[in-house]
């Protein structure tokens, strides 16, 4: 798929534009999510106003936070492994930006139009585990080591339901290319009815629920927040981090939340497609990102709503849920989807 928009530009110019847009998109979406959900929605749920001082309705609170953390001292503990400790935030943020490349937001608005698409995304999503383990190990702190190990155990356990849930979608769409998955949903029919297409949340509902649960665990949000449990581990692998380095972990967390929500909306909610408009029409290059944004905000609202409603799991309950429930159900979902695909 060659884009008319970029037809005259050399590869380096194109890539420069894509990287610039990607950085802006990830940071702006992450900022919007923190303000809307973490600052405001949660405050209203708890009968308080949230930040109100910086800017109208506290909308500049984020800039104030960044400014505050920029001025804080950068402390490397004496016993820490300086290289590993310092490199961990780089790895975590890099993994987020490796993940966002597979997300398309319109017929010509993609970062990488790869045939491997979601497969590539699932592969690079595990890189963040490395960064978190580096942070936990490099800090040379008992809380951090425990938090890092807990995070690793949790992330690899929930990586599997996540991947296996995606396979159901790949079977239905017959492709791993993210844009083609959107087209497959737009052109799909359920029992001959094609008015709304076939967003896979309808036919892959089980996979969607597994994906949401695994996503919650991958993001280490409550009820899966044992790795960063304040009351047990003093924020786990982030205990020894201060100032800007601490904030970078935080930015990485919310940027990844946005990217995972974008993945879920492409895979299950039809991506930039809205019923009634041809998804390959040129107008979708303008409307597509807005449609995506609405779906991302909706999905992340569910994530944060759950986060502030559910109590924390115990470590054994966590592993049991992944290995004894989610993985067998996801495998059954693959088999059933395969049988239905072959028979119909």
């Amino acid at each position, binding site marked *: 798929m060659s884009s008319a928009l970029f037809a005259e530009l050399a*590869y380096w110019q194109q*890539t420069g534009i894509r*990287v610039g847009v990607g*950085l802006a998109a990830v940071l702006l979406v992450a900022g919007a999510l923190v303000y809307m959900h973490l600052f405001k929605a949660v405050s209203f749920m708890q009968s308080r106003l949230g930040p109100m001082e910086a800017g109208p309705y506290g909308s500049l609170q984020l800039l104030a936070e960044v400014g505050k*953390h*920029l*001025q*804080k*001292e*950068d*402390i490397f*503990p*004496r016993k820490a492994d300086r290289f590993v400790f310092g490199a961990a935030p*780089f790895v975590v*943020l*890099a993994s987020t*930006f*490796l993940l966002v*490349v597979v997300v398309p937001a319109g017929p010509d608005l993609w*970062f*990488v*139009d*790869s045939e491997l698409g979601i497969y590539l995304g*699932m592969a*690079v999503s595990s890189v963040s585990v490395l960064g978190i383990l580096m942070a936990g190990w490099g*800090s040379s*702190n*008992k*809380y951090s*080591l*425990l938090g890092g*190990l807990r995070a690793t*155990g949790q992330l*690899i*356990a929930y990586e*599997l339901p996540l991947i*296996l849930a995606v*396979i159901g979608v*790949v*079977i239905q769409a*017959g*492709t*791993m290319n993210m844009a083609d998955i959107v087209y497959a949903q737009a052109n799909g029919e359920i029992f001959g009815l094609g008015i709304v297409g076939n967003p896979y949340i309808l036919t892959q509902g089980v996979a969607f629920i597994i994906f949401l649960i695994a996503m919650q665990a991958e993001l280490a949000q409550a009820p899966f927040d044992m790795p960063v449990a304040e009351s047990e581990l*003093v924020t786990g692998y982030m205990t020894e981090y201060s*100032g*800007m*380095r601490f904030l*970078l972990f935080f930015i990485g967390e919310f940027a990844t939340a946005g990217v995972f929500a974008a993945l879920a909306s492409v895979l299950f909610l039809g991506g930039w497609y809205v019923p009634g408009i041809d998804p390959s029409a040129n107008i979708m290059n303008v409307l597509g990102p807005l449609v995506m944004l609405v779906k991302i905000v909706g999905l992340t609202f569910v994530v944060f709503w759950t986060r502030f409603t559910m109590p924390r799991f115990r*470590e*054994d309950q966590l*592993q*049991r849920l992944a*290995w004894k429930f989610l*993985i*067998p159900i996801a*495998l059954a979902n*693959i*088999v059933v989807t*395969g049988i239905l695909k*072959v028979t119909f």
Partner: protein
Amino acid sequence: MSDFLRSYLTVGIFGLAGVALVAVFLGLGRILRPSNPTVQKLTSYESGVDPTGDMWSQANIRYYVFALLFVMFDVEAVFIFPWAMRLEVYELFGLVEMAIFIYILLLGLLYAWRKGMLRWV
């Protein structure tokens, strides 16, 4: 360079952009922040009391067992993805093949389950 390899180059550039972003933030902070390390500040945090013993201590063996199980299923997922893409072509033959494959792996999970590996004690 072919389009295929170029798309991987783009992925690499995005990774570097993430690294550059962190470098810019930390570099900006370097100009603004104070640096005044004291012995107390640099000690490991243990809720206010003086830290004791070696920080790189032993950890639960369970993490290792789950990591092994993870490798088993992750390799499985690598094989299922290409199959899932081409199921329309393989039809019944592919379905039976994959059913056998998943059955064998499920046996592995059941074995670990029976052995009590999935219990966190």
